[in-house]
């Protein structure tokens, strides 16, 4: 019987190797499949995350839109053609592919510490704190906090201590005077649009790609949810515009195992709280 045992070991070894190989092949396939699924999932999550990051900025800025401006001031009305685009929180070139607006990025404001009557010979004024005001940027002055109905937009030509000087070309009603305590805010024009297959954000500091391989579109609504036609009229911006619906479609960085790069679309409607508040 012992002689018969020779050969059993080799058979056992072959069976063991066979079994082990079968298990390893299955396991490897499983691991590779899981990794691939995980990779695809990560790809999608990355893509969604990229859109979310873009949305986070866009939502935050659109919500704040107009916070820098004398909106709601009857002597600085968006419907006053003589003020050009100075009194428009949302610019009239905004359409389905472009959103152009004014914003105070830092969320800071200061006040006039002495009255200011702008004129060609009087372009400087004192503020409580000029740390957020910079040369060549726009500022707005609003006297709603002092009981007035006026506004002004100017381009800062100089800052010295707490003295701010604006350039000789500025927009306001003739003869306007701003009382001590009027609000002074820095303002920046921001534009979101599509460019070369990406969503870009442009301001005076330059152009930044917010999301590559993505497109953005905008729709405009009044407080009842009715769509407003573009281009937006000054009256619509002044009296009706209450929300903007933003849609972003983005294609993932990498193709999935089916050979296709997945596309994701997210839509969000953002209320324009400062425009809405200005109408009460």
């Amino acid at each position: 019987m012992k002689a018969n045992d020779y050969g059993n070991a080799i058979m056992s070894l072959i069976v063991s190797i066979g079994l082990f190989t079968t298990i390893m092949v299955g396991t490897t396939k499983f691991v590779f499949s899981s990794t691939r699924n995980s990779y695809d999932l990560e790809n999608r999550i990355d893509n969604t995350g990229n859109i979310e990051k873009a949305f986070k900025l866009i939502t935050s800025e659109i919500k704040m839109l107009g916070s820098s401006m004398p909106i709601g001031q009857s002597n600085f009305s968006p419907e006053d053609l003589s003020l050009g685009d100075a009194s428009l929180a949302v610019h009239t070139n905004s359409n389905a592919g472009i959103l152009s607006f004014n914003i105070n990025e830092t969320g800071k404001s200061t006040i006039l510490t002495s009255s200011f009557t702008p004129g060609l010979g009087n372009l400087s004024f004192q503020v409580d704190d000029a740390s957020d005001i910079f040369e060549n940027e726009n500022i707005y002055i609003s006297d709603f906090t002092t009981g007035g109905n006026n506004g002004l937009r100017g381009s800062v030509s100089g800052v010295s201590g707490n003295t701010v000087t604006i350039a000789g070309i500025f927009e306001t009603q003739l003869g306007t005077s701003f009382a001590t305590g009027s609000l002074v805010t820095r303002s920046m024009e921001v534009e979101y649009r599509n460019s070369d297959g990406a969503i870009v954000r442009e301001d005076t500091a330059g152009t930044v790609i917010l999301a590559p391989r993505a497109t953005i579109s905008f729709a405009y609504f009044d407080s009842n949810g009715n769509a407003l036609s573009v281009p937006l009229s000054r009256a619509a911006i002044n009296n009706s515009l209450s929300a903007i619906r933003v849609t972003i479609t983005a294609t993932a960085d990498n193709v999935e195992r089916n050979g296709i790069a997945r596309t994701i679309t997210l839509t969000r409607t953002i209320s324009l709280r400062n425009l809405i508040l200005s109408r009460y």
Partner: protein
Amino acid sequence: MSFMENRERGSAILVVFILTGVIALALASSLNTAATQINATKNTKNQIENYYSAENTLNTVLNWLRDNSIELTASLDLSAHEFYYMYDFVSFGNAYNDSSNFAAPTRIRMNGTNNVPMLVNNNSLGTSAFPSNGFNALSSFQAINFNNNLVRLVMVDAIPTNPGKDYGDIDNGNQAPETDFYPVFRVDVMNQLNQGTYLYGFIIGSVVSGSAFGFFGEDYVEMRQGCDSYQSDNGSYTTSSRRANCDVGSGGPIRVLGGETVYGDLTTTNSVETTSPWGGDVCANFTTGCPDQGSTCEGTNCSVPTMPTYQQWSTYCPSDLGNLNVSGGGMGTILTPASFNAPDNCWNTIRIGSNRTLTLTSTSIPYYINTLDIANNGVLELQPDSPSGIIEIYTMDIVGDRFNGNQIFNMNNNPYQLKIHYLGTDDLTLNGTVDMGVFIVAPNAGVTVSGNFDFYGGIQAKNLTFSGSGSVHYDESGQAEVISDIQFTLRNMFQNYR
């Protein structure tokens, strides 16, 4: 045991080790990826939640202001007469109690202090200070659930509704303002002191002026006499000039005696009592049989103003001219204050002796008379120095707690040209047989009209009873505009994430 069998020993554990290692590697890789994404998502979620939490809290503050607007109207007291007793204007700067890194430049201070009216829910944002006037704004504010956010509500400024009628602080010798003021608040909300969302906006309070009722009793009104109205600026009261605008209001019950008629409206946050002996008519016109009912509003949905608030007497008159005794000399004495400032328009006691007359003339400077003592045959006569000007008398005490139309004689003028602000607590009685024309405000005392005479004018009192036998006519020409409410509106909002 064979050699091969010996060699096989331990192979199974090796296979298990290898398999476990491979699976563990795959799992770790997946978990790592998932953890990174979860953290990123969590951060985004937190940031978004912080924004909404701060914004929600800012709206909560706005709603608190709106919910308590009537109480805050009384508490802040931005009325023309009281404003400079309540507040000072300073150059824009940081107040003593607004001491944090987030201090906002403000122009207004509580009178005689360097504190700005401010409410905080956490002392890291400064120290609360707020006018009280019957409403504890601080405890009400701090009882609100602000979602763990830090909140500061600060009154940045107060703006005269008619800037041309603000003559500057009376402490500097200026004439008292002839305009009410409205507040400008700034509200700051932040998740934490140094991080998270920081949101702030401005809240403008629009003063709502309403007409004071012709006859108002805070606790109750008892009309045992009917009433109607007329406009003294259009001439004397006659049955052809009478009108049906005798408006009666109360924060408590209103009782109209059966058989009597109020030609006007009744408004109470309580009820109009109709059980006997009450239940008199309320008519919209003089048509016989009262086919057209006047308006009656009962219950908490009805709006009645709060009583006017006043300062302590020592605030109005930190010093005075002492006593004035009108007892000898000629037939009368004319009294004209030298200036708006104490002691020039303040007296401790003015006594008018029998058969003596003291004539008041000034319609631009109020008279502050702590104790007014008019002998039975003494006369306080009113001769306004402008055709429709109003002579205003502030007093703490009228000796005897009663007077008649002979003692305070205003019947040569329109009733509204004499306004008595009675700040005492002893109930007051108007009696006698001589017609009387006057407007009286008595926030701390009941007033009873009990004589056999015709009353022309208006009365606001803690409680009010008409029990005389003459007639009662509200003078619409003296209809006072009072601040009945403040409507709060949120304007420009700013935010950043730190």
